[in-house]
């Protein structure tokens, strides 16, 4: 161990300073115990970053451990920059989702853009070339001008970044609900493709190997993220206040090409993105994984601004930077590759045998921690968990007794209202701003159930989708957790893909509140049940806690990113009705459940009742039956029933694809044990609308696999309406009206918005 002395000019460590760094008294004592002395200011900064919720998962780790993570084809589970699964033919898919909620609340454009940049880097540092981006967004009500400002800024940020790098953005979801009013959720997912042999892990190895900083220079961006507020520091200098990170997709594109070239070259042993807590967390994590020591000299780090302190260099979150462990003696080759892409690489440290994490400023040691304890000694917590009685009461409320509104006499009115609810309405306004066809692999882009990308050189394709329904999780976290996974699987299966594995982003409130931690624990338990039943292990993810605003926590929102595999390109199936005269079937069981539905929320403003049941065994059977039917070549289209229930699903099959509109005639009069509205708008799980020219075969497959299946109507390609007969009534909707409701809502609302809305009510800056 070396002698560590306080650096002249650094503030003295007071209990106030410790508190500002987010450490509890116990955590600070733990730190002193680990060091055997008081920390320096630099050390305090390092620990506050690494022990932050964001980096340490101190509240979530024990719960996450309960998720299933293995399958024969999982090459890399949680613990790396991204998960990796094998898809055969020597190929593998790397994928991961991450949140950028708080940065996006402060600056939607840059927040979303840098979120995309970060998740891209997580995937290409595994050795995979990114082939698709997805995003999952939650905003408050679109009636609010600030929400429209956030929405348009986030969409533009996602689009501009991904478009410039040249990765197609192919799928996602957007939900509008006042529960997210001051705390939008911005989750971005990236999927990459690689040869199995190119898989590289972020594990520092080889004593004497140089550590290099690669890519953009380091500035004072985002030091301590958005959480840092210190009177002492900000009074000292405005320049030290946390700063928004600005994305540079052009540099990212160069970094992507250079990194893939580096990985192929064999000149490096490990590479990791400098993401949250920048140089500090990337270097400490790489050392911990490799069980080696490292030493870093901050004066060698290329900076953008002069006079940066070790504290600032270590904690900067400047974007588009990588940390690389090169092979000793290959430094020049590494530099040459970066030079080719107009980027620089600097040796900033070395892998050492002594098990320490050491930071120097020239000769002076400014921080030193024993072994890998910096990472492993982080405290973990298991807070109290208790369901809020108010939510139990909401769940117990009987949704079926909510009185009908007068207009509902004509279900066509209700259907139009639902189709024009921003959460259900077409999101083309957003995804038209995303290049979804670059790289020429996109067989099905945004607009259907899941996106499908062909895998060049094979007869295979992969299907990808994100899903999550916060309202269900709010009403019943266990069931909601199950549904999130099951729905993602169903979406992927509708395209003809076998669900393979998931990544997940857990967006919750403050975990130290028992009712929030209860939601977290239960939702993860529900996800685990579904993952086990469906055979889709978790290969990674991200946890975003403290999503709260003065009006309370957001809906607990686990977002599932699912990857599925299509073995044969001929199995690729679309959501919209394809052929005149096809029979329409409902695969799965009609349940007539209205609890937690979009119908209750949109038409009645009620969030009550138990969310629909989700029997994960039945979900598996439905998916298997669907895939069997698709592989038998008897399915023309498949679309799952979700928000808005069967009626919305049918309408989407008719008018969802503007190039392929069809009418349909449906008879649901057999379901007389349910009310008309429950049949139309109930959101029972495990249901898929299938169209087929060989309905007998579909029925036979379903019966063999023990899945309810019923013929419910016919596709009339040239009819101009959707007609539905119900047990006690009927409805007829002209396609033009359905289409108008579905396609025009969001463009019309957004056209009323100035390009930037007022900035005067900036959202409060919550934790990172």
């Amino acid at each position, binding site marked *: 161990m070396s002698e560590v002395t306080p650096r002249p000019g650094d503030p003295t460590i007071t209990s106030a300073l410790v508190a500002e760094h987010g450490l509890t008294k116990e955590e600070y004592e733990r730190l002193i115990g680990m060091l055997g002395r008081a920390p320096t200011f630099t050390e305090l900064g390092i620990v506050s970053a690494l022990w932050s919720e964001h980096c340490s998962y101190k509240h979530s780790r024990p719960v996450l451990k309960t998720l299933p993570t293995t399958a024969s084809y999982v090459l890399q589970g949680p613990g790396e920059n991204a998960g990796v699964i094998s898809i055969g033919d020597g190929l593998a898919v790397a994928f991961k989702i991450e949140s950028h909620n708080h940065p996006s609340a*402060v*600056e939607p454009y*840059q927040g979303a853009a840098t979120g995309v940049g970060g998740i891209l880097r997580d995937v290409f540092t595994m050795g995979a070339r990114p082939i698709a981006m997805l995003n999952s967004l939650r905003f408050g009500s679109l009636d609010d001008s600030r929400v429209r400002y956030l929405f348009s800024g986030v969409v533009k940020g996602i689009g501009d970044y991904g478009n410039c790098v040249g990765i197609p953005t192919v799928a996602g979801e957007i939900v509008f609900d006042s529960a997210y009013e001051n705390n939008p959720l911005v989750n971005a997912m990236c999927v990459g493709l690689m040869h199995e042999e190119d898989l590289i892990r972020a594990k520092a190895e080889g004593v004497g190997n140089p550590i290099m900083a690669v890519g*953009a220079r380091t*500035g*004072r*961006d985002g030091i301590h993220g958005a959480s840092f507020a210190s009177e002492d520091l900000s009074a000292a200098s405005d*320049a030290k206040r946390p*700063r*928004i*990170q*600005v994305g*540079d997709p*052009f*540099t990212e594109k160069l970094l992507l090409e250079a990194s893939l070239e580096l990985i192929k070259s064999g000149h490096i042993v490990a590479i990791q993105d400098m993401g949250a807590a920048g140089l500090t967390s990337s270097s400490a994590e790489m050392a911990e994984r490799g069980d080696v020591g490292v030493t870093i000299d901050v004066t060698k780090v290329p900076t*953008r*601004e002069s006079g940066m302190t070790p504290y600032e260099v270590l904690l900067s979150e*400047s*974007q588009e930077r990588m940390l690389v462990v090169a092979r000793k003696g290959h430094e020049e080759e590494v530099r040459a590759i970066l030079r080719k892409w*107009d980027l620089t690489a600097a040796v900033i440290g070395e892998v050492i045998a002594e098990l320490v994490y050491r930071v120097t400023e020239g000769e002076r040691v400014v921080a030193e921690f024993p072994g890998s304890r910096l990472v492993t000694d982080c405290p973990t917590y298991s807070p109290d968990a208790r369901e809020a009685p108010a939510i139990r009461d909401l769940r117990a409320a009987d949704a079926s007794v909510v009185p009908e509104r007068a207009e509902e006499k004509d279900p066509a009115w209700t259907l139009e209202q639902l189709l024009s609810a921003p959460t259900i309405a077409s999101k083309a306004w957003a995804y038209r701003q995303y290049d979804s066809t670059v790289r020429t692999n996109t067989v099905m882009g945004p607009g259907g159930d899941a996106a499908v990308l062909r895998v060049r050189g094979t007869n295979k394709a992969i299907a990808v989708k994100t899903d999550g329904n916060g309202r269900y999780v709010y009403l019943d976290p266990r069931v909601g957790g199950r549904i999130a996974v099951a729905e993602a699987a169903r979406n992927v299966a509708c395209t003809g893909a076998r669900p393979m594995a998931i990544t997940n982003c857990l967006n919750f409130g403050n975990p130290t509140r028992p009712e929030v931690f209860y939601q977290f624990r239960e939702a993860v338990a529900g996800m685990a049940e579904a993952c086990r039943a469906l055979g889709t292990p978790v290969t990674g993810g991200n946890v975003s806690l403290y999503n709260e605003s003065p009006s309370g926590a957001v809906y607990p929102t686990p977002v599932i990113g699912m990857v599925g595999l299509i073995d044969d390109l001929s199995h690729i199936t679309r959501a919209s009705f394809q052929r005149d005269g096809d029979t329409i079937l409902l695969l799965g069981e009609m349940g007539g459940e209205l609890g937690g539905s979009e119908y209750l929320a949109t038409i009645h403003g009620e969030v009550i009742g138990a969310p629909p049941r989700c029997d994960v065994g039945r979900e598996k059977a439905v998916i298997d039956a669907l895939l069997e039917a698709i592989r038998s070549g008897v399915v023309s289209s498949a679309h799952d029933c979700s928000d808005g229930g069967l009626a919305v699903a049918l309408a989407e099959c008719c008018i969802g694809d503007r190039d392929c509109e069809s009418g349909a005639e449906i008879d649901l009069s057999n379901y007389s044990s349910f009310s008309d509205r429950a049949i139309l708008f109930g959101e029972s799980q495990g249901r898929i609308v299938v169209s087929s020219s060989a309905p007998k075969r579909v029925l036979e497959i379903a019966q063999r696999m023990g899945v309810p299946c019923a013929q419910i109507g016919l596709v009339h390609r040239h009819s101009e309406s959707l007609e539905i007969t119900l047990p006690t009534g009927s409805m007829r909707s002209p396609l033009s009206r359905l289409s108008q409701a579905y396609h025009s809502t969001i463009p019309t609302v957004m056209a009323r918005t*100035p390009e*930037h809305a*007022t*900035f*005067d009510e*900036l959202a409060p800056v919550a934790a990172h």
Partner: protein
Amino acid sequence: MARFRIAVHITPRKGLLDPQGNAVKDALHTLGFKAVRNVHVGRYIVLETEAYDAIAAEETVTDMCRKLLANPVTEDFEIESAVPA
């Protein structure tokens, strides 16, 4: 009421990464303008507005900058004197 013209300069806030400025600087170097040290790229907005006098016009434009023209998180703005249009 009279009509005034006011020019506004909006620049990326100091210390924030300015990818546009960097790209232009690099390009100028490549073109042989090696003496260039720094480049920042911002926006230039010229407004014509009716107001009682120049002072009122400038106040209104300041308000516009706060509310719409400049992003308070990432940009600084500067307003030139109003001139009769």
